[in-house]
Each structure stands twice: as C-alpha cells, then as structure tokens.
C-alpha cells in the first residue's frame, strides 16, 4: 500500500543516515539513554554549554553536527510514566512480542502487527479516537497526511527520521529548530517570557513559548490545527491539543526528548512520550524536498475508489465509481 511505501521510504532514509536498521531501533528501546537508539560509540563527552553557562543544544562553534531524529511510527509504544520510564505494560508487550518472534505485536512494530486500539489499552482513548485509530490501522495508514508531504504536528516533528538542528539565539531571546525532513520546516520558540496570544491562528506546528528549567529546555505549545496525525500509525488529535516538551542533553551525543500531550478532544487524560535522539558529529543539514515528484498522491484513492486529489465525487456516489476507471 502507498502509505506503507512511504513508511518504508522514511525508514530507508533514516537507515541511510545512521547505518542502523529502523527495526532494530523501533522495539524495546528504553525511554532514556544507555541502550538502543541513544547509545553512542566511545565514551560520552561532556554536555557543551554556551557562554552564559546554559546548555548548548546545538553545535560547538567550529564543529559540524546534527541531531538524527529517530523514526518512531507508533508513539503509544513510547508512553512513559511519571518516572520517565516506559510503562511496564509496554515492556511486557514488547517482551511477549520478542518471545513470540514477531517483534511487532501490540501495535508497536513498524508496518505490521496493527492491533488497533485494543492492543494499546494504556492509551486514554475516547470512543471516537479509538474507532478512528482502528480505521487507520485497517487502512495501514493509507491516509497519513505526512504521506501527502504535509507537515507533522506536535511531537511527530521529533519522530520523523531526518536530521535536525537547534539554534539558540540568546540575543534575540528565541530558539529556532530547522528540520531537513517533515517538508523542510522550522520551528520558532519564543524565549522572551511572552504569554500566548488570546486568539491563536491554528497551525501545523502550533505556537511555542520556551524557558530554561535548570539544564532543561521546556517548551509549551498550543494552537495546533487538525491537519495532522500524532504519528504514522494514525493516533488522532484535535485542535484542543496542547503539548509541553522537555529537552535535556545529558552528554554531547544525546538529546533526551519528552512530551506531555493534553488533548481533551481526543483523549480522556494527558500522557507522556519520551525517547533519545543521537548526535551525528559528522553531519550537516542536507536538502530534502518531500513535495518534489510525490507520485503517491496521483495513485491514492479513497474508500470508494475515487482519486483523493481528482474530481470531487457526488454525494452518495457508489463505491467503485472512479472517474479515472482505475477500479
């Protein structure tokens, strides 16, 4: 299926960057570093700092380096408790999957093992969000908006497998994050102590206000639109979503990311996800334009065999009545 092909493509891109297969990264990695994705060759180097003593979340002047954002297809398998550790039931699910040899049960795999909402009972589903997730599972993420080259919203920015840089600009009291992938977008985080505007215009990436809490960068985000999915597996969200992100850099090679999601439109209570992002000391940001030659869109058909981006179907159109004759 097309969306699956996009997923494989993303995985291949990530593997090309890191030299490691996505499957090896996807399951069983702890929420905090030490093993799996966050592991680095050689001893950990000290956390770099800016002139004012705050943590440097980017390059050391004169050096190269980018963050290798991991490919996380199902954030439900990255839900952590208040201790920051992966939920015990998720660990058990992963252990059971490994014992069974599947490595992807419980909806935690990359392309298969789509168990739907019932396989993720720790998620605080609403009836509609569970049903929508089941629909996306059955369709194998056919309608994933990121497959349309639309920007990912919220934490998915940090789970789309391309390189990323964080530029701290203390004089301007702002931080800019530049993403190679995810439609070549950037994020601007205001560090000037401002409040959220009262009437936010909903956007893909929302409105971000940050602050330092010790060595952590904490960013509050609001004002998301509903044009994106939470992840490739198709967890939905609404424009009522707010996200609090927390970045730390425990050593030079590791960025730890945690996001607490509150969305009273789709989930009955907040939940947190977390993972490590490794540093690629030899890299510089390449150019990647998702929109270029995206043939997937030309082939994509809806549940009635109608082209997604073609002529509009008439209300009540019968299944299979494709004006292109593709069915």
């Amino acid at each position, binding site marked *: 299926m097309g969306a699956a092909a996009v997923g494989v493509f993303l995985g291949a891109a990530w593997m090309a960057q890191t030299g490691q297969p996505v499957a090896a990264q996807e399951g069983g990695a702890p929420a905090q570093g030490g093993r799996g994705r966050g592991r680095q060759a050689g001893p950990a180097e000290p956390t770099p700092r800016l002139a004012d003593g705050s943590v440097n979340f980017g390059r050391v002047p004169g050096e190269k380096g980018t963050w290798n954002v991991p490919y996380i297809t199902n954030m439900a398998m990255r839900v952590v408790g208040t201790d920051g550790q992966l939920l015990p039931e998720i660990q058990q699910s992963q252990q059971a999957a490994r014992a069974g040899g599947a490595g992807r049960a419980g909806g935690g795999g990359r392309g298969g093992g789509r168990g739907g909402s019932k396989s993720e009972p720790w998620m605080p589903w609403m009836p509609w969000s569970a049903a929508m997730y089941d*629909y996306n599972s059955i369709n194998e993420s056919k309608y994933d908006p990121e497959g349309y080259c639309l920007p990912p919203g919220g934490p998915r920015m940090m789970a789309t497998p391309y390189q990323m840089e964080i530029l701290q600009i203390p004089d301007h009291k702002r931080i800019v994050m530049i993403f190679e992938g995810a439609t070549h977008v950037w994020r601007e985080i205001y560090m000037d102590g401002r409040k959220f505007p009262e009437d936010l215009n909903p956007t893909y990436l929302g409105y971000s206000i940050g602050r330092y809490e010790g060595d952590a960068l904490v960013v509050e985000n609001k004002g998301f639109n509903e*044009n994106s*999915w939470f992840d490739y597996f198709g967890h*939905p969200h609404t424009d009522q979503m707010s996200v609090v992100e927390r970045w730390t850099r425990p050593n030079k090679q590791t960025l730890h990311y945690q996001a607490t999601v509150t969305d009273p439109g789709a989930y009955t209570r907040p939940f947190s996800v977390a993972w490590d992002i490794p540093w690629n000391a030899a890299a510089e940001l390449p150019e990647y334009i998702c929109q270029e030659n995206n043939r997937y869109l030309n082939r994509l058909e*809806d*549940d*009635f065999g109608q082209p997604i981006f073609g002529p*509009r179907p008439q209300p009540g159109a019968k299944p299979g009545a494709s004006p292109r004759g593709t069915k």
Partner: protein
Amino acid sequence: MRRVMSVVAIVCALAMPASIQAQFGHPLKGQWSGEWGPKEKPNRLLLNFEWDGKEITGVINPGANAATVKSVVFDYSNPSSWGVKITAEGKDAAGKPVAITAEGKLENLGAYMKHLHGTWTQGGQKGEFAVTRN
C-alpha cells in the same frame, strides 16, 4: 485592455481547483453540504458540526430557518462505516417546532471527502439524504 485583463483574471480564478482542507480531528466536525428528499425536488442541506470533547453540537441550514442539533449518537461497530443518528429541532412555516431525525452512515472517514448519507425525516416527510464534507 484593462477589461480584457479583468476577464482573464476572473477566468483564471474560476479555473483554479477548489482548495481541499485537510481535517483529521473528529470526523463529523466541520461543514457539510448536500440535499435530501426527492431527486426532482430536493431540499438543500448545510450542516455545521462542532466537537468540544464532550458532545457534538451543530446547526442545520444556518440562517432564519435554522434547526438546532439536539443530539448525535454514533455506532462504531463497523470501523469503516460509522452509524450516525442525528436529532434536531426546526420550525415549520408557521413557526411551530418540527422534529428532525437523520439516520445514516458516515463513510470515507479518513479521506478529505467524507460522506454522510441515509434517511432524513422532517415533520411528516421522509426521504434519502446525502451530504459531503466541504
């Protein structure tokens, strides 16, 4: 010359494809348009739905003759085709309350062009209805 340019600009504007707005939140949320009743004399329909996390609210045919949505009930037993029952209250020409019930299926859930169709009952009349999300 200016007139010709104006005509060209208008033609170009009309020729542009209608923009399609993605919406991946609650699938019923948004504006829907279509019709109900006999094909030879259909009744236009414009439905506006909102979702606040607790209930669906909405208006049928906004304006002077608007009907207010009283309740929306879903049946999720078929993941690809949700059952939907909408009850609303409008007014007839004399201003008397008229009960409206729409019972049908919400389909094409993940695509831009979602469909809602089924049976529409309004006062003493009953007929098929079909609306597509704008």
